[in-house]
């Protein structure tokens, strides 16, 4: 009986710091938040919400780039490292690979990839040919395979003639001024290298039937996709391919899949991953991740400095109270609690609100930018006009340029794990940030405070 009474007493006493801290956060009567609380709240709130926006835009771009690469590029590339580098028995190998990977693979196919020279009248440039298997629709027509990049022109391309046709990147079309129906010549090395003749070239005209877009600039400006059979004619090889390529459903299986199929391709073959193929790209992504984390920490540290300063302010402005409470017999730990809670609770509240507001902002970022766009243009149209001519100094300013390639919409991606971690760190750090001034408050001697303002 007495024991439980004591426990109740202890609980009541340990709740007292909360009561006092809440009052300091809330401020006296009527007001929503005390001035100091408002300051630290605004600091952390703005910090975290901007953080969310920056991170989701960053993440959005990364996702977009990754997606554009992963959707189209092969995830595993198997090459013959001997002889003439061709894979002649590719059809059984494809089947073997398929059965080794089972449902992990989304496609396994043969491919020919080679650098080439492109000529259109007097324009000459270098490109990469990627020859892949198209669907055989019969009737001498070919269907677009899965994993094919988005075709932006013509609007609907359901099938193409089984002839020497090609689909080129949108950027290349722009750079070389190509149109649908134009003919380009592709020049490739053909046959075996000999000392006498070197590598004899072969040349073949191709008709452009469409433009594709992967969103990956290197591809969109350099890649020419042609049907496999046509490529075999171009390179003068019978039914053989240069690579066997594998696409997976889940990129996390990449290295597992490689080890799975390495049993099939011993000794003579090499297996490369998409990460090997695009080292620069993935290194850049990693640098971006580092930059991203650095930015996050700078944001959080800035917000923390805000909390330290604000809590110091609270401690300073509540010095009298500290003296009073201490003369009334409050413990050091309770004082420590009160002022740590002050910053900590503000930190939690501001972090959560900030993340929510940040998500709201990023979700509506495009709308917000469009709103400003129209606002700026209206101002230009109606208010900032040349007196002499009546012309607007500006109109049609685009904050999200519609015609610039990568910006047809603003990609947003939330890395929930990352946001959670950032929020957690922010809350944790605001506790630590508040702890420092609170510690100094708990060490104050009441006699100094009482004497200090008594005389």
């Amino acid at each position: 009986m007495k024991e439980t009474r004591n426990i109740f007493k202890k609980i009541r006493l340990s709740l007292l710091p909360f009561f006092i801290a809440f009052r300091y956060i809330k401020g006296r009567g009527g007001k929503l938040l005390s001035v100091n609380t408002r300051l630290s709240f605004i600091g952390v709130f703005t910090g975290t919400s901007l953080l969310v926006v920056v991170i989701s835009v960053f993440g959005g771009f990364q996702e977009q780039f990754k997606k554009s690469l992963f959707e189209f590029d092969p995830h595993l590339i198997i090459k013959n490292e001997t002889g003439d580098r061709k894979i002649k028995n590719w059809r059984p190998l494809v089947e073997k690979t398929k059965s080794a990977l089972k449902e992990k693979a989304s496609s396994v196919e043969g491919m020919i990839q080679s650098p080439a020279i492109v000529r259109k009248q007097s324009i000459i440039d270098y490109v990469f040919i990627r020859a892949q298997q198209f669907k055989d629709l019969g009737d001498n027509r070919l269907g677009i395979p899965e994993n094919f990049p988005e075709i932006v022109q013509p609007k609907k391309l359901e099938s193409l003639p089984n002839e020497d046709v090609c689909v080129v990147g949108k950027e290349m079309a722009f750079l070389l001024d190509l149109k649908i129906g134009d003919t380009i010549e592709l020049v490739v090395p053909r046959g075996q290298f000999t000392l006498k003749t070197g590598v004899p070239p072969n040349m073949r005209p191709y008709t452009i039937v469409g433009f594709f877009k992967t969103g990956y600039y290197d591809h969109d400006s350099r890649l020419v996709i042609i049907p496999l059979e046509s490529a075999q004619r171009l390179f003068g090889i019978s039914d053989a391919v240069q690579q066997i390529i594998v696409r997976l459903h889940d990129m996390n299986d990449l290295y597992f899949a490689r080890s799975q199929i390495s049993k099939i391709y011993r000794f003579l073959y090499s297996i490369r991953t998409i990460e090997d193929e695009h080292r620069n790209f993935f290194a850049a992504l990693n640098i971006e991740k580092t930059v991203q984390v650095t930015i996050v920490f700078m944001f959080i540290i800035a917000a923390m400095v805000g909390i330290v300063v604000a809590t110091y302010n609270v401690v300073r402005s509540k010095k009298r109270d500290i003296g009073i409470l201490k003369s009334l017999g409050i413990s050091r730990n309770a004082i420590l609690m009160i002022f740590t809670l002050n910053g900590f609770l503000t930190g939690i509240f501001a972090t959560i609100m900030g993340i929510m507001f940040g998500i709201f902002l990023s979700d509506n970022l495009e709308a917000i930018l469009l709103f400003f766009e129209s606002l700026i243009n209206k101002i230009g149209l109606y208010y900032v006009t040349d007196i002499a001519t009546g012309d607007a100094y500006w109109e049609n300013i685009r904050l999200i340029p519609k015609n610039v390639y990568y910006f047809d919409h603003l990609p947003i991606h939330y890395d929930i794990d990352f946001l959670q971690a950032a929020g957690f760190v922010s809350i944790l750090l605001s506790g630590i940030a508040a702890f420092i001034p609170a510690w100094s408050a708990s060490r104050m001697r009441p006699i100094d405070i009482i004497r200090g303002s008594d005389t």
Partner: protein
Amino acid sequence: MSVILETKKLVKTYKSDEVQVEVLKGVDLIINKGDFLSIRGSSGVGKSTLLNILGALDKADSGEVCIEGKTLNSYFNEDGLHLYRREKVGFIFQNHYLMSDFTVLENVMMPLLLNSVDRKTAKNKALEVLDNVGLKERAKHYPSQISGGESQRAAVARAIVHEPPIVLADEPTGNLDTKNSENFVDIFARLQKERDLTVLVVTHDMNLADKADKRFKLYDGLLFTV
């Protein structure tokens, strides 16, 4: 008559810049239950110093303070001085020292809350004491909304609400005008009688000092009866 507080040879010296000020030179004092003591003395003689030592806000260089048979040193070594301040004394300062973010009622409840009294009981007790000092109507006001005299009465309420063995007051009328001091002295003396409070008050105020049944003067670091 039981002894509430006893001091033995309290000595306090302030050292600053090679100048030593010997403020208390061995103060002996015995306070019994229900005593009303007053201490006078010229400015700078060490009255506040003595009171602060008794209230465990300051520390004597040597000598002993004994409260209800337990030495202050044993608090210092075992439970923590804050427990002594919390349970054993009620302090009234020259400036009222109410906390501005809390209502008068909450200010008066604070010592009870610190003594783990539940909120409801604390509220009732605080209201009762506020009624005693004539501030019941002001309970919901904030310190900035009441006058200096009222604040000082609230400070009295806060000092006695948890019924500490001893109430220490350091020039409680020091900042009040004549009318307010008279009012304060009346209420204070009345409460002392009604509640049989044990009070030690340091004051220049003759009016207040004369209400005490034992009067002292602090002179040259020692206490003398007047």
